């Protein structure tokens, strides 16, 4: 059982509320940093891909998990970030580290502008509206040949710094990705502990009372959309280097759905959830694939096996823990925090009842 005695306001503002946080997150950080020591290029490369998706997921998490606005179109912003990065590197003689924030901000500005008309919609309408928008954006990527290369696609200049060329499938680029992830995490956490972040959560929970507390709903939503798309764009810029070649159909609905899967599986409403979700959704299919290699050919060569197994695992997972991995983690933590006095009842699911979401 853990008792935390609060001695100052800072304790509530800090990222790491008590030593337990330091220990567990420090451990995580060490694990992540030392990963290349005991993992091969394959695993490291997968992790890098997961990280770029996690960054995009963090962007979507801000929007869906904290502001309560659903987007089925984030793949398009992922794509815009990727293309912007590729175009910047192709057109100007700048370092990829300089190009990345520019690409992110550019994506954010587009997201911000698009949000102005979009955010009159809510719920399922917003979801489908963003989906339609992403289809239109994809079409622009296809048609704007002079910039995007159209259907021929576009090669991405390799990431290099002071003459050192990064290998996107290797440890060096992994560290770049990890550093960006940590930076983005810090930015998101900062946002969430300041007024704008609280306003976002307020908008999510009750628009009327948020407005009565002086929250400008439209502005909060649009800001959230802008920041969310900027972060997703940053993920895209990173992913561009991972991909090395961009094609317009690489950023379609399936990717948007993947993002959504990630944040729900990870646990809506927590930054940790976005990362956990990305790890699961990106790495699990690969794990299934590898397992498949050890199955007898009569089963292993069955087409469509991975998505099926993946789907089944997801089904089982959601049935078992609709609150996502982070939700489960919190329960486990609670178990230890209140250790001797826990009871089985603590973790039993009470009946729950839904109310209409058509009242706003």
């Amino acid at each position, binding site marked *: 059982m853990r008792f935390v005695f609060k001695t100052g306001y800072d304790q509530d503002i800090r990222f790491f509320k008590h030593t337990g946080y330091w220990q567990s997150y420090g451990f995580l950080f060490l694990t992540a940093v030392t990963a290349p020591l005991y993992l*091969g*290029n*394959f695993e490291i*490369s*997968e992790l890098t*891909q997961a990280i770029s998706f996690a960054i995009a997921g963090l962007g979507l998490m801000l929007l869906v998990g904290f502001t309560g606005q659903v987007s089925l179109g984030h793949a398009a912003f992922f794509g815009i970030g990727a293309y912007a990065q590729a175009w910047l590197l192709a057109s100007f003689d700048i370092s990829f580290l300089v190009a990345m924030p520019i690409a992110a901000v550019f994506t954010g500005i587009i997201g911000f502008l698009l949000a102005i008309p979009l955010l009159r919609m809510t719920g399922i309408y917003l979801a489908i509206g963003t989906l339609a928008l992403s289809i239109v954006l994809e*079409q622009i990527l*296809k048609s704007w040949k002079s910039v995007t290369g*159209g*259907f*021929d*696609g576009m*090669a991405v200049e390799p990431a290099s710094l002071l003459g050192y060329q990064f*290998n*996107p*499938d290797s440890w060096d680029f992994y560290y770049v990705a990890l550093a960006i992830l940590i930076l983005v995490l810090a930015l998101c956490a900062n946002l969430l502990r300041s007024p704008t972040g609280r306003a976002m959560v307020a908008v999510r929970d009750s628009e009327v009372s948020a407005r009565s507390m002086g929250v400008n709903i439209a502005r909060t939503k649009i800001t959230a959309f802008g920041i969310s798309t900027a972060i997703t764009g940053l993920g895209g810029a990173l*992913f561009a280097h*991972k*991909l*090395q*070649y961009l*094609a317009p*159909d*690489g950023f*379609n609905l*399936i*990717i948007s759905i993947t993002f959504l899967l990630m944040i729900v599986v990870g646990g809506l409403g927590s930054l940790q959830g976005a990362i956990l979700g990305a790890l699961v959704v*990106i790495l699990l*299919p*690969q794990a299934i*694939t*590898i397992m498949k*290699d050890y199955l007898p050919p009569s089963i292993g*060569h069955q*087409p*469509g096996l*991975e*998505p099926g197994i993946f789907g089944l695992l997801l089904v089982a997972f959601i049935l078992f823990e609709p609150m996502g991995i982070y939700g489960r983690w919190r329960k486990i933590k609670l178990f230890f925090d209140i250790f001797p006095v826990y009871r089985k009842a603590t973790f039993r699911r009470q009946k729950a009842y839904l109310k209409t979401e058509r009242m706003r």
Partner: protein
Amino acid sequence: QTRGVTDTEVVVGSHTALTGPVAPWGVGQAAGARMAFAEANAKGGVHGRKIKFIVEDHGYQVPKAVQAANKLLNRDKIFAMVGALGTPMNNAVLPRQIKANVPNFVPFTASRQMIEPYHRLKFLAFASYYDQMRAATNYFVKEKGFKKVCALYQDTDYGREILQAVNDQLKALNLKIAGESAHSPREKSFVGAITKLRKAGCQVTMMGTIITDSIGPFLTAKKLGWKSVFVGTIATYDLIVAGFKKGLMNGYYAMTSFEMIYPDTADPAQKAWADAFKKYAGRPHTGASQLGYGSGVLFVEALKRAGKNLTVDSFIAAMESLKNYQMPIGGPPLTFGPNDHQGSTEAYLAVVENARWKTLTKPLSY
């Protein structure tokens, strides 16, 4: 030591679509290639090396293809990529594959980009879509005297390549395209498109389509009583297209680089192959399995020629030594050479008759 090669084994891989929109091809092709390798392995392998073939599914999605390639290149350490499916997927994987010095052997897409620009690691067996449609346009204008050539294509990289071919060839013939119509790959209704092309008076419509979106427009035109010629690429040279509702597709043309094997009318060798395939895969073969098998056999041939000391260089040299090689699945003879990694640029014209494909011409060129 060359990656993926030991004294007893050579590991090759493929990223393909076993699910998603083009799964029928991926599944058929993977089975065909597997069978070719299984046959070689049954004979004790090539130079004592068994071929281990690892197929990864990308469901026709780029990020998954990158993941699949990561596994094949970094975990399985393949020697060559054989029959990787999908133009965008191949494009996405190629940079890292080339960096890893892994040949891209006969990808399962006839896009021009698979061979252009030239790279020593890239190999394509047959005519590209672009070659096919230029040849077809050339044929219908020159041989049939058609003046009004149109294009109906899906709005994808593939469809656009066909549009490009038609435009380029018409330009070479001093003509202009008479009409065009684009649709999304999942389009199901073509009345609007056919109405437009009919109004444009198209005599022949070049199709940048695959299976369902070839059947749809053709039948719609029939329904509307419009008699015009429709020509597809090898992507529509498919058993389902020809056999649809036992004869409804009669009169539909397609370009192809090989000839479909119909067991009941085939020569004994082909029939034996068809039976063997059915036995091996548990289902009848398709065009894709013929192609997959063909590429597998070609790969085995190259391994044989490369000799005991298998390296990427010896493999490339072996490929470049192939002259007038005849695929077991038919098709024009293949000739490779230094700086020429495309086996052939010619294709046949075929038509559906009695719900079956019938080859009409000698290999065409432009």
